[in-house]
């Protein structure tokens, strides 16, 4: 079993619009199928 540390979100301009932020940014390793499970 291997643990993969979540990546910090890349620098994003501070925004008040949620639609400008990708919802999966905090789960990149999961979305890229490098891990099969993550805790949120």
């Amino acid at each position, binding site marked *: 079993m291997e643990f993969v540390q979540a990546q*910090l*979100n890349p620098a*994003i301009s*501070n*925004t*008040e619009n*949620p639609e*400008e*932020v*990708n*919802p999966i*940014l*905090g*789960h990149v390793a*999961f979305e890229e*199928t490098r891990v*099969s*499970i*993550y*805790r*949120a």
Partner: protein
Amino acid sequence: MASQAILVRPDSPHYYPGTLGNKPIAVQFHSGSHYVALRLLEGYLPKEKLKLVHYGSPKFRFDALMNGEVEAAALMEPYIALAEKLGCRAVCEGHYLGAENASNNMDHETFEAINRAVIKAVDMINANKRQYLHYLIDEERFASVAAKYGGLTPEDFHLPRLRYFYNTPYTDEIVEDTYNWMLRWDLLTDTACAADLVDNRLADPLPADD
């Protein structure tokens, strides 16, 4: 369980959420800090007065709070303990369910083994929470923040805030209530349905001593 508090600086004029209308509050959109902030603040302020600003990961939200870029920030542990040690105060706080999210390619045996490990960990941590706080304090990203602001020790934590219990499936009622809440805040398309969002097939309760 996870917990997020909306914190203000020691010199802040804000003592409860009702005065934070139109004041910038740092969150990470589409994550716990975003959703908890909405759930907490909607009881005090009309939607049009909520000024949530995306600052990303907690270290950026913490810095934005401390350097005065925002009036308040939604933070979880161990950032809450560090903020309170520095004299910041929580104007409100909410607990919420965390969960393991597994992909379709995870087999049943592996998922059950992970759940058994989680159950064992819950028992061990609840028996002596302070013994395990070094995992929070020494985490690489937080450690750099703590060092910048004077450090943090296990004695600085309010232990009842840290809540651990066995994983259980989401009930249909919880899923439906959450689904409707997300629709109301435009966080979910109404073409989704509960069956698309939650799969409880692998989430049968497990005995603690299995």
